[in-house]
């Protein structure tokens, strides 16, 4: 599978008054193939969303990114604002966590979706309207012609997320970044939205960069999974393989913490401790303080990300013992 998006050694630093205050990403490398769905999982603060935002160059002003993000052979980090705008919403688009606040409350939904279409496709008024209606229909909204004339607050969360997806796919992007697209929805609606995304992906063949903290959700949806911890990728692999046999204790701990796998009646297992936030890397594995399998070596030397068999990689000294 040829790579659509290739993130190579992406580092993001936050600074304040000229001093670096945190290294949020410490060298993330990831790839998304054409039409492939890649899930990015990890705890809060490990850099999932930041990685997604970096791709669209949506980092806050006080963040600084280095490394390389190639998309279709071009380095996104080096694009001019003009080139960037033509890619945003056109070739790469994004679905957000909270559909309720991602639409401008004072314009109708159809108007906002239409703006994206007319901007990137240069369609006229009539054509835009037809396209919006078609796309709203494609995301499973009934009566698209009347839904178009609704203001965001007049639609339910699930409907809005469908509309958001319509906005994201109307220009037929080749990459869709989905940042926890179901977090704000209840479970049944979340399932519908995931089904919808998968169906659209099959039909249109775009790649998906799926950000979530829910391994179950990601494993349902994605071909491959990358696990992030403290600003680094610590394990990647095919979804079913990674789930069947995680090769990093952090991934295993995340899996054990899933409600579906716990014994009924017993309290849910958690991963003890918190993600390290120190500015300077302590020597050794960043997960060592929380790791049940920690050895002396782990505390002294940071394990590199190595192949543990058929495209499955893990950064753990003891991956063979798992």
């Amino acid at each position, binding site marked *: 599978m040829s790579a659509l998006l290739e993130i190579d050694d992406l580092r993001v630093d936050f600074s304040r008054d000229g001093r670096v205050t945190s290294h949020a990403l410490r060298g993330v490398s990831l790839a998304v193939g054409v039409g492939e769905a890649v899930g990015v999982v990890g705890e809060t603060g490990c850099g999932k969303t930041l990685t997604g935002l970096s791709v669209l160059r949506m980092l806050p002003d006080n963040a600084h990114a280095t490394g390389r993000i190639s998309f279709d052979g071009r380095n996104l980090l080096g694009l001019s604002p003009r080139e960037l705008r033509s890619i*945003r919403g056109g070739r790469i688009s994004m679905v*957000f966590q909270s559909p309720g606040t991602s*639409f401008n409350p*004072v314009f109708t939904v159809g108007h906002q979706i239409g*703006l994206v279409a007319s*901007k990137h496709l240069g369609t006229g008024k009539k054509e835009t309207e037809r396209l919006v209606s078609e796309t709203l229909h494609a995301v499973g909204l*009934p009566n698209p012609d009347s839904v178009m004339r609704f203001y965001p*607050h007049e639609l339910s969360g699930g409907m809005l997320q469908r509309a958001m997806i319509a906005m994201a796919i109307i220009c037929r992007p080749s990459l869709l970044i989905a940042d926890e697209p179901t977090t704000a929805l209840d479970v049944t*609606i979340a399932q*519908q939205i995931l089904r919808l995304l998968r169906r659209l992906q099959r039909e249109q063949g775009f790649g998906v960069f799926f950000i979530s903290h829910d391994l179950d959700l990601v494993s349902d949806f994605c071909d491959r999974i990358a696990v992030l911890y403290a600003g680094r990728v610590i394990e990647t692999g095919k979804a079913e393989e990674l789930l069947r046999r995680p090769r990093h204790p952090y991934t295993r701990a995340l899996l054990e913490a899933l409600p579906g796998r716990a014994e009924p009646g017993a309290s849910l297992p958690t991963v003890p401790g918190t993600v390290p936030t120190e500015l300077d890397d302590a020597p050794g594995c960043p997960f060592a303080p929380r790791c049940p399998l920690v050895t002396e070596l782990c505390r002294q030397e940071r394990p590199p990300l190595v192949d543990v068999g058929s495209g499955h990689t893990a950064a753990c000294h003891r991956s063979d013992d798992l």
Partner: protein
Amino acid sequence: MSVTLDSPEQLPPAYRSTGGISRRAYRVLRRERAAQVGASIIVLLVFVALTAPILAPYPAQGRGVADVPARDLAPSWQHLFGTDHLGRDILSRVIFGARPALGVSLVVVLMAMLIGVPLGMIAGYRGGWLDETLMRITDLFLAFPPLLLAIVISALLGPSLYHAAIALVISWWPWYARLSRTVTQSLRQAPFIDAARVFGVREPVILARHVLRNSTTPILVQATVDLGTVILAVGALAFLGLASQPPLADWGLMVADGRETIQTEWWISTFPGIAIFVTVLGFNLLGDVLRDVLDPRSGS
């Protein structure tokens, strides 16, 4: 999960959008007494100002021609509001007085908005040193009560209605800059602004479309109330002799005119005073309900 998946959620029972501005205006007007009163006053006032020469019983006197033998007459069928020290019909002068009142307040508020709103938006959106600089400049103006500042400026420029208007613009624009800055700052962080950026919208377009349209409600509400306040301020300046000059029919000037004889010829000051009061009331009532009309989220 045993639910039927990928079936669209149910639509709300009333499957109809609450509609645009005209619909909301109609709904608010039908429901709210304050809206009816406020709108009636303002519509009536605009009508009076436009048709003053036809409506006024003595149009020439409304424009300032004196009729000294008929001076200081109490209200009668001949002169419903009585006559002033120069024998002019007060009803006619109150009617003609609606013109400078509405005209000046409209111009002052529009100018103050045109200066203040873009500056405030840029300051709020950009932040940093630009924001600091612009806001310290507004602080300079806001340090004085607006009326006091206007009095000082129009006294410096020399008394005329034109100068009074300039003075009021100078003391009013910082309020709009402040207001629009605050609104912009809260909008800058809004997810839908980020969303617009993600979908490739240019920054100036984001400001002009997304930020401006979302700040119109508070700004227009403020502007409507200010229309009344400016009329009051113009009246105060005229009362002090710093704005309109005789023989222009100006409510503030007319109140000042009857001030010394208010014990005996009460009608000279009272009727123009009532005109100011009713106008300010009208704008205030309208400002209160304008929010419901402008904001699509209200009243569904």
